[in-house]
C-alpha cells in the first residue's frame, strides 16, 4: 500500500509550501526596521530558503499534477527504475540544497543560489520526467491542448534550466552584459515553462469540471497556446531594458510582450461567460481556486503589460512593483491552480467546513493587501529613483516602513490561510494510501 506517483509529488509540494511560508514570513522581519536581528539567521540565508521552498512547491506540484492527470487519462507509465530514480534525485537535490543553505554554502545565481553541484540531480530528474512523460503519451491520438502545453513546458524547462548554468563557462561569465542577458533570458523562459505546465493543468481541470472536451481542442485554445509559447521564447526583454545590450534584443522583448494585449482583451471579452460559468460551479471547492486564479491573472497581466512598456518599466524596474508582480503571479495564479488541483485530486473536490472556506477568503484578502502594499512601496521607490539628488538609500527605506508593515501583516494572513489549506490537504495522506493502479 503506497501513494500513487503523482500524489506523492503533490504531498511533497504541499510540505515545501509550508516551509516556504515560514521562511518568507521570517525573512520579512528584516524589512520592519528592527535594530538588532542577531537572533535571526541572516537575510542572505533566509531569502534563498524561502525562494527555493516556493520553487519546489511549484515544480513538484506541477510534476504531481501532470502525473495525476496522466493517470486519470489511464496513460501514466510510471513503473520501474526511471520513476523511482526521478523521485530519489529530487530528494537528493532538496536535501543537498537545504543542507548547503544551512551551512551558508552558496555559489549559484538568483533563484538558484545553491552550489551548482545540486543542479545536476534536478536536471537529471527533469530528464527522467521528460522520458516518463513521452512514454506515457506516445499512444494518445488527437492531442488536446494541455498535452501540447505539458510537452513544451517540460522540454523548455530543461532547456532554460541548462541555459541558466552557462555562467559556469568563463566564455559567458567573463562578459558582464552577455552574462546578465543570458541569465534573465533563461529566468524568463523558466517561468514561462512552469506556466505551460500549470496552465495545461488548468485546462485539464476545466475539461473535467465542465465535461466539455471541445474547449481543449478547438482553434482558439491552440491559438492561445502558440501565443503563450511565443511569449515563453521571446518575452523576457523587460527584465533588461536598462542593460546596455544590443537594441534588437530589447525591441524584440518590447514588441513580443505587446502581443499579450490579445490575451488580456480575450479575458475581458469572455469575462461575462466566465462569471456565469463560475456561478454554476461555485459550490465545487476546487473551482473557486480556478476562479481566483482568473481574477489574479487579469490583475497581473494588466500590470505586466504596463511594466513591459520601457518608458513605464524605467520607473518600476528594481522596485517593489516587480516584487508585487512576481508574488501576485506565483501566489495568485500558480498557487491557486495548484490548490485547485490538490483539492480535486487529494480531497475529491469535497466542500470543506466553514473554517477552510473562510481560509480561502482570508488568502484572497491578504494577497490583495500584500499586492497593494508592495505596489505602494514600489511606486515610492520609483519616485525616489527618478530624482538625481535623492536622499540616502537608508532614509528612503525608512520612509517605506508603513508599506512594509502592511506587507508583513498581509504576509502573516497569507501564511495562516495557505498554511491551513495545505495542512488540511496533508492530513488526507493517510486516507489516500491505496494499491497502486498505474501501468
Amino acid at each position, binding site marked *: 500500500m503506497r501513494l500513487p506517483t503523482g500524489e506523492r509529488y503533490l504531498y511533497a509540494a504541499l510540505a515545501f509550501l509550508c516551509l516556504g511560508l515560514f521562511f518568507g514570513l521570517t525573512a520579512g522581519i*528584516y*524589512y520592519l526596521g528592527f535594530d*538588532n*536581528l542577531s537572533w535571526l539567521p*541572516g*537575510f*542572505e*540565508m533566509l*531569502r*534563498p530558503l524561502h525562494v527555493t521552498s516556493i520553487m519546489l512547491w511549484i515544480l513538484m506540484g506541477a510534476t504531481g499534477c501532470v502525473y495525476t492527470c496522466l493517470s486519470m487519462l489511464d496513460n501514466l507509465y510510471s513503473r520501474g527504475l526511471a520513476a523511482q530514480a526521478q523521485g530519489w534525485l529530487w530528494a537528493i537535490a532538496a536535501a543537498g540544497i537545504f543542507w548547503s543553505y544551512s551551512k551558508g554554502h*552558496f*555559489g549559484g*545565481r538568483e533563484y538558484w*543560489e545553491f552550489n551548482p553541484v545540486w543542479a545536476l540531480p534536478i536536471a537529471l530528474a527533469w530528464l527522467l520526467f521528460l522520458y516518463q512523460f513521452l512514454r506515457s503519451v506516445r499512444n494518445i491520438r*488527437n492531442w488536446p491542448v494541455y498535452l*501540447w502545453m505539458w510537452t513544451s513546458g517540460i522540454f523548455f524547462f530543461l532547456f532554460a534550466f541548462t*541555459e541558466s548554468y*552557462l555562467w559556469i563557462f*568563463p566564455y*559567458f*561569465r*567573463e*562578459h*558582464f*552584459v*552577455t*552574462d*546578465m542577458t543570458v541569465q*534573465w533570458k533563461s529566468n524568463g523562459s523558466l517561468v514561462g515553462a512552469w506556466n505551460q505546465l500549470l496552465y495545461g493543468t488548468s485546462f485539464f481541470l476545466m475539461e473535467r469540471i465542465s465535461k466539455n472536451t471541445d474547449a481543449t481542442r478547438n482553434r482558439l485554445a*491552440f491559438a492561445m497556446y*502558440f501565443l503563450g*509559447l*511565443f511569449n515563453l*521564447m*521571446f518575452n523576457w526583454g523587460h*527584465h*533588461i*531594458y*536598462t*542593460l*546596455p545590450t544590443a537594441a534588437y*534584443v*530589447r*525591441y*524584440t522583448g*518590447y514588441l513580443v510582450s505587446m502581443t499579450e494585449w490579445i490575451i488580456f482583451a480575450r479575458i475581458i471579452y469572455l469575462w461575462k461567460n466566465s462569471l456565469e460559468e463560475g456561478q454554476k460551479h461555485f459550490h465545487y471547492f476546487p473551482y473557486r481556486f480556478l476562479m481566483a486564479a482568473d481574477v489574479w491573472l487579469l490583475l497581473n497581466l494588466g500590470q505586466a503589460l504596463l511594466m513591459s*512598456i*520601457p*518608458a513605464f*518599466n*524605467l520607473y518600476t*524596474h*528594481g522596485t*517593489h512593483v*516587480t*516584487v508585487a508582480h512576481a508574488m501576485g503571479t506565483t501566489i495568485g495564479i500558480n498557487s491557486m491552480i495548484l490548490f485547485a488541483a490538490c483539492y480535486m485530486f487529494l480531497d475529491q473536490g469535497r466542500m470543506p467546513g466553514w473554517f477552510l472556506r473562510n481560509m480561502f477568503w482570508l488568502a484572497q484578502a491578504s494577497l490583495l493587501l500584500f499586492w497593494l502594499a508592495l505596489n505602494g512601496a514600489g511606486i515610492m521607490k520609483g519616485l525616489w*529613483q*527618478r530624482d*538625481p539628488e535623492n536622499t540616502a*538609500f537608508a532614509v528612503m527605506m525608512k520612509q517605506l516602513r508603513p508599506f512594509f508593515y502592511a506587507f508583513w501583516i498581509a504576509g502573516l494572513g497569507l501564511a495562516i490561510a495557505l498554511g491551513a489549506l495545505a495542512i488540511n490537504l496533508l492530513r488526507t495522506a493517510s486516507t489516500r494510501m491505496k494499491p497502486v493502479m498505474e501501468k
Partner: protein
Amino acid sequence: MRLRACQRFFILLKKITILVFLLAGFLGFSMSIYMIPPEGLSRSAEAGQGRLVWQRYNCQACHQLYGLGGYLGPDLSNVMSAPGKGEPLVRAFLKSPPSLMPSFHLTEEETEQLMAFLRETDASGSAAPHDFIILPSGMIKNNKTR
C-alpha cells in the same frame, strides 16, 4: 472516415509547421545572444572571478545590479563611480559592515576580484533611471556617455 483522417493530418501538420518556425527563430535568437557580445566591452578574467565571489557570498540576496537582485540593500551597478561613494566606501563596508549586513571576512584576493567585478559592472553603463531618455516609440535610451 478517410476525409476526417486527412483533415486531422493537415491540422497536425499545420501545428508542427508553426512549432518548427518558432523553434528555428528561438534557436537563432539564442545563438545570436550567445555569440555576438555588445560592442564596447572587453572580457575580464578577474572580473569573472569576482562574479563568483559575488555569488559565493550571495550578495544578490540584498543588492541589485541593473535593478536585478534583492531589495534590502542599494543597487551597486554604479557604486564605484558614485560621488561620495566609490571603491574606498565599498572596501570600508566589507571590513566593518552596517547593522543588517553580515561580516563576510573576505580574503585579500577575493576582495580584489570583487572590486574588479564591480569596476567592470560600473564601466558597462549607467543603471540610474534619470540617465535615460524616453523615445517616441516608448523605448528608452541611455543618454549618459561613460
